């Protein structure tokens, strides 16, 4: 079932070209890292097809817990043997994809098609948010996730047909904040009151495609959209973006912060390129590694140390052009902070490493 293109393995960069295919040409659009897994490098790929059952294909090393279908959403359990962590023979097992166990459907027929589903970033995984048309639905999973009930909803009111295009659950503030995008606007929501807390009108010239929170700086947010730009926002000052990148030559579909080194930013675009940027100036480590903003004396010492080496500038680290078609999703590995995957329309999954030179520069 799975077709592997030749592996390219070297000491410095581990690259894998993987094609996700099922019976027919499989079109893949969704990609996520298995966040609960810390030992193995696992990516979940969601396919988009109509005639066949959509698969959640496990990567060079497997699996999924989230599916994206146009009209419905469901919660799945991963096969238990993977959860137990027996992954010593990945190639063989991937020829035998275990089916996922369907736990429950998120029954949302009343609210229209689902744009995206978000797990609670922290906590015990009992809460899920789905964005459907112009509704925000907060689900509670009960009884070992076999049943989901809507605990609260919010609706975006306005002129015309408002549709959410993307959303992100903030990992900060005790998971009480959600940010959503519809058309050119970005909105923040407070989940306790299910009310809007801020709104960046005209955040992008055209449609906003994706959002991501800086994992280390709670007010910082990255967004991307059809105007080929990636913008960084401080949600306390929403009039102007903190910074704006314009490197892609078509719509930017996906933007992701590295989970531990937030200066590393990954973007995927329908110009078939993946760009890895190094945004030092607005990261939590603007002066290099190990600088603690709270400790001034440390800060000074480090600054003195830094004088020896060239401070890192905001820059494009690399542009990856392995894809032949539009790249719709990019994702960092949950287990290895230096590894990331990108997925294009034709089903090709490319896994790359951050260049070693940069890695050492960040670490040392």
């Amino acid at each position: 079932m799975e077709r592997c293109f030749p592996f390219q393995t070297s000491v410095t960069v581990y690259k894998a070209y993987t094609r996700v295919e099922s019976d027919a040409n499989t079109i893949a659009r969704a990609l996520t890292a298995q966040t609960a897994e810390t030992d193995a490098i696992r990516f979940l790929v969601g396919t988009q097809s109509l005639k066949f059952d959509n698969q959640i294909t496990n990567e060079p090393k497997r699996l999924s817990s989230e599916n994206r279908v146009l009209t419905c959403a469901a919660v799945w359990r991963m096969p238990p043997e993977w959860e137990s962590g027996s992954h010593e023979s990945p190639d063989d097992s991937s020829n035998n994809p275990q089916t996922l166990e369907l736990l429950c459907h998120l029954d949302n027929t009343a609210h229209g098609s689902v744009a995206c589903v978000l797990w609670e970033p922290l906590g015990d995984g009992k809460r899920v948010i789905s964005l459907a048309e112009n509704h925000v639905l907060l689900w509670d999973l009960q009884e070992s996730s076999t049943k989901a009930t809507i605990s609260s909803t919010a609706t975006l009111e306005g002129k015309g047909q408002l549709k959410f295009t993307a959303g992100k659950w903030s990992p900060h503030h005790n998971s009480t904040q959600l940010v959503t995008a519809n058309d050119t606007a970005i909105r923040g929501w407070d989940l306790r009151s299910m009310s809007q807390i801020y709104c960046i009108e005209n955040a992008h010239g055209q449609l906003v495609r994706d959002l991501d929170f800086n994992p280390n700086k709670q007010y910082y947010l990255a967004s991307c959209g059809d105007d080929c730009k990636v913008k960084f926002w401080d949600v306390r000052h929403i009039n102007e973006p903190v910074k704006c990148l314009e490197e892609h030559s078509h719509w930017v579909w996906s933007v992701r912060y590295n989970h531990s080194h937030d200066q590393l930013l990954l973007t995927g675009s329908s110009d078939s390129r993946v760009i890895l940027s190094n945004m030092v100036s607005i990261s939590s480590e603007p002066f290099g590694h190990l600088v603690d903003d709270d400790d001034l004396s440390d800060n000074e010492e480090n600054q003195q140390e830094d004088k020896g080496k060239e401070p890192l500038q905001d820059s494009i680290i690399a542009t990856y052009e392995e894809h032949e078609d539009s790249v719709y999703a990019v994702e960092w590995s949950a287990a290895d902070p230096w590894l990331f995957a990108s997925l294009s329309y034709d089903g090709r999954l490319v896994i790359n490493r951050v260049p070693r030179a940069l890695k050492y520069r960040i670490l040392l």
Partner: protein
Amino acid sequence: RRNEINVTKYSTTPPDSDPTGRRQVHSMLKLYYGMNEEGKVESLDPCDINGPHFDPEVYLNKLRKECSLGELMDHESCTVKQIRSLDSDMQTLVYENYNKFISATDTIRKMKNDFKKMEDEMDCLSANMAAITEFSAHISGTLQDQHAQITKLSGVHTLLRKLQFLFELPARLNKCLELQAYAQAVSAHRRARCVLQQYSHMPSFRGIQDDCHVIMEQLAQQLRQKFRDGGSSAKDLSECVELLLQLDEPAEELCDKFLSHAQSRLEADLQGLEAELIDSLVTDTGGGLVQKTNPGSNPVSPSSSSTTNPFLSPTAGTDILEFIDRGCNEFVSNLCLVIASYQELFINHPQEGELASKKIPEMANGKLHVFVDTLAARYFSLVERRIQEEKGVGDNSLLVRALDRFHRRLQAISKLLPGSAVPSQGTEIVVRAARERIKQYLSALQTFYHDSLTDVRQALAAPRLSVGGASASGGGATSKDATPSLPELLTSLSNFILNQLKSVLASVHLFTAKDITFSNKPYFKGEFCSQGVREGLVVSFIKFICQSSRQYCESAGDRGGSTPPALLLLLSRLCLDYETSTISYILTLTDEQFLVQHHTPVTPVTALCAEAREAAQKLLNHYVKVQGLIISQMLRKSVETRDWVNTIEPRNVRAVMKRVVEDTTSIDVQVGLLYEEGVRKAHSSDSSKRTFSVYSSSRQQIRYAPSYTPSAPMDTSLLSNIHKLFSERIDIFSPVEFNKVSVLTGIIKISLKTFLECVRLRTFGRYGLQQIQVDCHYLQMYLWRFVSDENLVHFLLDEIVGSAAHRCLDPSPMEQSVIEVICERG
């Protein structure tokens, strides 16, 4: 015969002299009698009988040798004849000389007798003179006593007269006071003053002195009063001051008084000016008052101010020229007058005696400088306020003339007062005004540019609205009506700007005209031309055009294109024209007009051109983006709003595709008006619609094959992958070149890519797919001709159909022939 000749010679010369001495004497005699010396030329010939070197032997030999006997005979007789005549001449000469000698001897003898008689008479005369001297001494001795007496008497007389003068002095002074003959009084008092001072210990003299003092005090009082009144003429005034100085009045005090007096008058002038400044709309009554307070102080002012004040000022305030005129005529000329008279009085006045020692000129000069500086500062502040009010940029000549006059009049002060800082301050003001002016012109140009852009915008919008309302569906027709004016708009816009710039340059050029006094100041020669006009005005304006053009790209980009695309296109072409020719033209013009000598580094033409080109590129890119976005939005809406699963079998090309083609055509026309055709790939020109259709259909059939035969799924993906491997990556929002084809290619790329991405997000039924097929074929039929490389269109459309097939629940494509029929029908 030889002897005879010798006799003739000796008769004229002393017998003892040798031949050379003889010749000397001969020549001297010759000189004496005025004979010339031409004989000397032949004198060396020994055969010349008259020459001094005559040798008888040689002569005879010669004759004997050369002549026949007859000739000799003739010659002899001739010679004898000559000798005889010479002998007779000689005799007469001797007789004459002898007679003269005898008469001379007689005369001498007579003279001896006469001198003896004269000696006796002289002795007699000397005796007489001695007697006269003796008598004279006797007389003077007798008169001595009487003479001494007379001298004494005359001395007493003078003293008495002086005393009488002293006693009469008070009365005389009083009389003078009554008659106001101050000068006489002062001179009289001055004469008596020393004496009175000397003899003041005597009571009578003291009385006189006291009286005099009182009177003089009174007189000084009167003089001061007169001085203070100031109504008196300059001559009176100067006399007054002179007298006061002679009366030991302290000069400093006088200076102060004089200056304060002058100040009050000048202040009145300034107040008049200020009043005019403050209520420039109301008739300045202050002017009239000023005129009354100092009538006749300046012969020019009444005439000019009478023309300015009552008749002209009630209109919208006085213009700057009038204001400056008035300032010059009233204030400056009065100031000059004051300075001149002051200098006449205190500085240049010939000082006598003790006055000279008081160093009055230095002190007075210092005071004058302070005085002039303070007043001038006030005047300058007024003038500057007035200049600042001069905001209108219509007629620069007025301002320049006013400044010129202002500057020219200040030169008078500099002549009068060489060390004064006033003229340089005035120049400063002029320079500031010029700088300010340049800034105003720049902003005026900028507003003009904005206005003309607004006009263009309206011109672009107006026909579209009117015609668009009339013909509702005909998008192509409306734009056709609107677009023909594009090139005209462009030329008129660029002409407007150029003309405006030229007129501004001409206005600014007035500052450097030859007849303007300040034009030869170093600032106006150098910095004004290069930094002010070239950099501050021309370069800044060009930069402003580029800047504002770029702003159109940036601000409009986020708001979704509030700028009409045609304007973007127009501006892009404008910037490109600037890059190619206009900038260098303008700068050359400026350099020529102002003879700019670049002492400081200036912006080179190339940098400006690069900037203009960049702006043009940006505008054109933005134009492509905006137009692409408009078509994209149409396509996106059409894909997103339709239910593709439950659609009916396609019978027509969807209206939106026709609209897309129409819009593309109209864009093509629009761009074609301003930009050249550009280069296409060679094969496109002869690729007809027919071959194109066959080509695309064959490819499509290959691509759809796997749908019919599910047994070979790998082939499809392999094929598509191989195809992708060999096709170049397409940059969607890539910069375009300055030609029509490139622009259209960019727009079509953006539109089709959007179409593709939207299709991938939808689910299609069988007929949905077929509809997409029909639409794509229709687009293929019409869009290939616009782009540089038709393969691009093929590729993107193939991708669209392919993606739709992937997303199709029942992928059974339509027959190619049917598609063609539908497309040709619609």
